[in-house]
């Protein structure tokens, strides 16, 4: 997790965006020190509601740059994610996808599958970038906790995108519910041996499948009008002078 935070911090630095203007709603319990070091506004909110909360922040004050960092993104927050992407709310979502080792019925399951289901690991995980892309996200990327440089670049790049961007980070992150055994090293080694960078790959093909290499990289980078843009355009068109555009482009 630490590597992600420092990469995130580096990304902000690179992007040149004022840290004060960055808000980070998250269901990951960051410690006060980390938040202070990042210099952003942090909200720890109920599980899964980071995107919806971020939507409110952004609409209330369009000059904010909202970065939901989510651990529970696809479980409780799945709906907010797909709809946020459809609306193209201006958010940068960092989804920390932690691999969890968990035993079921005495059977150890190296769950290269999914953090979304630490128990029923016989389920297939989401192909996250593909889902994001199909719902309308304008920027999708995936990195592991090892790819700190790339991750920082990605963050810097995505912070300047107008629309919903999503970066999936595979990491031995803080699982919200369970204690994990110390697996960091083992996993990092696993990443090192099992990941391959393929930029601009069709997100359709980047599902994480056991025994195959994990594909990382930047997959989507396109432009679409954001929610606030189309809100302004449509209402100006119909209402004319009676309507004062909201916020303006990215504040």
């Amino acid at each position, binding site marked *: 997790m630490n590597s992600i935070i420092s990469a995130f911090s580096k990304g902000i630095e690179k992007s040149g965006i004022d840290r004060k203007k960055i808000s980070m709603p998250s269901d990951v319990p960051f410690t006060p020190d980390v938040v202070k070091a990042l210099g952003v506004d942090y909200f720890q909110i*109920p599980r*899964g509601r980071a995107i919806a909360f971020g939507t409110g922040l952004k609409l209330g004050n369009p000059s904010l740059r909202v970065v939901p960092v989510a651990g529970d993104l696809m479980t*409780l927050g*799945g709906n907010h994610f797909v709809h946020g992407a459809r609306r193209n709310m201006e958010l940068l979502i960092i989804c920390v996808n932690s691999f969890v080792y968990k035993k079921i*019925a*005495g059977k150890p399951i190296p769950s290269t599958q999914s953090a*979304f289901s630490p*128990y*029923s690991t016989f389920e297939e995980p989401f192909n996250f970038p593909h889902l994001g892309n199909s719902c309308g996200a304008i920027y999708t990327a995936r990195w592991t906790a090892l790819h700190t440089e790339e991750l920082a670049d990605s963050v810097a790049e995505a912070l300047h995108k107008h629309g919903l961007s999503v970066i999936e980070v595979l990491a031995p992150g803080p699982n919200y519910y369970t204690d994990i055994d110390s697996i960091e090293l083992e996993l990092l080694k696993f990443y090192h041996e099992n990941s391959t960078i393929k930029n601009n790959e069709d997100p359709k093909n980047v599902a994480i499948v056991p025994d195959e290499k994990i594909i990382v990289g930047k997959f989507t980078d396109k432009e679409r009008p954001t929610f606030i843009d189309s809100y302004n355009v449509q209402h100006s068109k119909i209402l004319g002078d009676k309507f004062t555009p909201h916020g303006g482009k990215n504040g």
Partner: protein
Amino acid sequence: MKADPKGVLTGSHTLTGNHACAEGAFAAGCRFLGLYPIVPSLEISERFLERAPEVGATFIQMEDEVSVLAAVLGASWTGKKSMTVTSGPGLSLMMEHLGLGIMLETPCVIVDIQRVGPALGMPGRPAQGDMMQARWGSHGDYEIIALSPSSPQEMFDYTIKAFNLSERYRIPVALMSDAYVAHLQEKVVIPPAEEIEIEPRRYYKGAKDKYLPFKRDKDFVPRMVNIGDGYKFHVTGLTHDDRGYPVMNEECQEYNVHPLVWKVRNYVDEIIEVQEAETEDAEVIIISYGATSRAALKAMEQARKSGVKVGSLRLVTVWPFPEKRVAELAKKVKAFVVPEMNFGQVVLEVERCSYGDTNTFFVSHGENGVENTDDLLSAIKQAVQADKVESGIIEFNKGV
């Protein structure tokens, strides 16, 4: 009916409250668990999953708590006894489907291992802040049954009782435990299967074309059938008549919803279980439930030793509230002392049911440890000294 031996792990074990709860569920015949992981209820689902294959039970981990209870209700209609386990935040998300369970009169058990709230509170720390929520948390009118165990053995026993009550009254039953009892490890004796009494589901047995899913029998409970038995029934969350068809007018609302309340209110004597200790000659009675009962009983003994006549009334069923018994006792004693790990919930009911006959002292318990009796003893002291009946709850204050 006796329990199915397949699910009963007869013997004497050392189990945590959570594990005992899972064993209780198996013994009661629970064969479906809907889950979404949340501290501090994890161990129940872990135990359940671990033993599910040998018992022949099914489970599913859903995407959120909302869908968990929906799935549990669906599973219950297939004829499998079903339950879910959760904690405060999860229970809040289940509120909508609690209402659906009430309206469809679907038997199921919701185990709530309470933690400190509101919001995220303190995951893993015990509290009793969801008691009122269990009673009032869903919209609309309903009555519910809630049990509160105070030890791992009781987690086992009352999980079975919860299933039995839910089958008997066709109602979701909440087992309101807390993180303290859930993580407490004690001896749990699981009796042989033939000694465990199980309430079978009340099935409809008449002609297929005459089945009415919400026609109340003499015992006030409509008879159930399973999906796939060929009855082709219809049920809806809308206000409905006996056939389960929506009819949206005042009369039908009365016809449909009033019995949902009566179903419990008319049977309170059968449902309610309280445990009394030394109440005959008591001057002060401690009314407690769940983990606080442990401190209450201790405090009672200590107070007796120092010469104060203290009794204890333990609410095993917190909902429906034992109004009658509390009112009777109120006439005999000088004061009630109510310790709760919250800022005043069930104490309001105690105040209501004492009808001005006695003082009600409230102790916000648990700050110095769940089994610590200091606050309770001082409150008892204060209670004995009080010479007139005050209007309103007297909140015991440590003088902070």
